[in-house]
């Protein structure tokens, strides 16, 4: 476990924010997560890395959760504060040979877009479609950093996105070809539903990668 200094915080919405930390000699594979907590504190939580492999800082995208412990506390941290990082952990990552010649479908809800942001910014040349499921349009975190032709905003709470409805409804109306490599990240109910849909559309579990947040 190493202590890293907070460089700054970017508040994207009243509840979502990005913490940028010094990188030091930290290394990770895009898609992995870290555990984060205040230096010396025993309360730690998992956060996918939002920044790209080549960035000279580490960023995480966090949404404060109602009645949550750490996501609220982290929101109050200031430049100069020290946070402990452990990791990087997990296998939600890309295969080098596939990045160059495969088609990708990223399906995520809320802050589940975080590892996808890291994928796309680490490998801008990737052939991908990104489905981001949110309720309201302000949760389209840093939408402008994605290629608008590849990004489909699915809003379920209002008709302000590219698609009015949940990501799973979009998938039903827009089937995925079975050779697509699919990455699902965020809420487990979305992941289960999307998994069933993809399976029916002929995509096998092998090319379906999942990261369950809660």
């Amino acid at each position, binding site marked *: *476990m190493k202590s890293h200094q907070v460089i700054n915080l970017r508040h994207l919405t009243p509840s979502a924010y990005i913490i940028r930390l010094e990188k030091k000699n930290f290394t990770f594979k895009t898609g992995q997560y870290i*555990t984060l907590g205040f230096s*010396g504190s*025993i309360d*730690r*939580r*998992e956060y996918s890395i939002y920044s790209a492999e080549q960035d000279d800082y580490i960023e995480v995208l966090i949404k404060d959760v109602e009645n949550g412990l750490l996501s609220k506390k982290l929101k109050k941290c200031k430049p100069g504060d020290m946070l402990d990082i*452990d990791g990087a*952990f*997990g*296998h939600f990552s890309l295969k080098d040979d596939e990045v160059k010649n495969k088609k990708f479908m990223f399906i995520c809800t809320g802050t589940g877009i975080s590892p996808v942001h890291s994928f796309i910014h680490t490998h801008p040349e990737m052939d991908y479609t990104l489905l981001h499921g949110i309720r309201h349009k302000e949760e389209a975190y840093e939408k402008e950093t994605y290629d608008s032709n590849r990004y489909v905003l699915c809003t379920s709470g209002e008709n302000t996105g590219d698609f009015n409805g949940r990501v799973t409804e979009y998938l039903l109306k827009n089937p995925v070809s079975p050779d697509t490599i699919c990455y699902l990240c965020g809420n*487990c109910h979305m*992941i*289960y539903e999307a*998994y*069933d849909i993809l399976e029916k559309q002929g995509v*096998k*579990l092998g090319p379906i990668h*999942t990261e*369950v947040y*809660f």
Partner: protein
Amino acid sequence: MKYHLISLGCQMNASDGERVRTVIEQMGYTYTEQEEDANLIGILACSVRQNAIDKVYSKIHKWNKWKNKTNLITFVSGCVLPSDHEKFLKLFDIIFKMKDLPNLPEMIQQYGITTPNGIQNGYDVQNDQIAEFWNVKPDYASDFEAFVPIQNGCDKFCSFCAVPYTRGREVSRPSVEIINEVRSLVERGYKSITLLGQNVNSYGLDKPDTEIMFPELLRQVGEIGNEMGTEFWVYFTSPHPRDMTDEVIEVISQYKCLAKQIHLPLQSGDDKLLIAMNRKHGLEKYRQSVSTIRRLIPEATLFTDIIVGFTGETDEQFDATRAAMKEFDFNMAYIAKYSPRPGALSHRWFDSIPLETKKDRHQVLTQDLKLSSRSYNDSMIDKTYRVLVRAAAKHDGYLAGLTEGKINVRFLSDNTDLIGQIVNVKIKSAIAFSVEGDLIA
């Protein structure tokens, strides 16, 4: 100078404990069963269940009280969660990771309170023999069954498990050392050797350029069997279905000493629950492995691990596990009622299945298991099996042992000299989980 050591939890800790004993005894300590008599007390902690963690706290609070009366050094190692690590630092005199075991003598000698060991200079802490954890010669608890650690740590991050956080990443032990240890055990007449690791079949993956992979390691162990020509059985546990290749199964089928018993944890028969568990494989992958096992090693027995009542497990998902149980005909399944494990990812997810439901599911699945176990055991009747005699059975006048496939056998005999030997037993009756037979001269 006396020491006392407690190993909590899994076989990995028990195996590590054998090495810890060696190091401490080389310093001149002798073992005592009585904690009160010890000058040095250690505990290899387990973080899998809360009660195991609670036990560490209750012990250390007791030992710390004794320090008013006696010069006592305490240490802790094993599976320690980061949150407990912080607290243990204040409670224990020494806390170390198992990989730092070779430095334990130095830590004890330099602990800074006067102990017999602190003032004696006899022990060479630079002892080459124990320059590395793996090199520490274990003080095996048995003289016919041994556990050989081949790999430590885990990179899999199943959501219900804290091992990747407590034991760290997968580290493979040099194959040369493993082969030497197995060879030496066989030379000394050991009959049952288990290659041990959190994820044995990931062996070598952490050193792709410099180390052999698991199938090759098994092959080299198999060659020892061919060379020596003696009878012994080599097991491995636990493998992960994701890394279970056909090659591993092929190698087992090719060598006599590689035991025809496979422990392949399934955990759930439902693909979506496997996703929530972050197992990174589906039922189909498991099915393929079992079908290869049945094809190449039809005589193999199959063991598994199952969790019932995992967060969100629906009746349908539980039924899928029951169906899998039926399909795979397990000889044994270690069925656990889900309980959130401190430090594991799922610990913070709502534990949605009521305890009563978990108990019911546990019972139902155990009944299913009894059927498959019984049906296999019935098929053993009138056949003669090689049985490793392990101990006197609970019933007077009987000895108990295991077949190569790890089926429990008992037979009438009071000749305890047979313990540690492999004998012929003709099976005459069977129930679920065990059989009874007659010793054949």
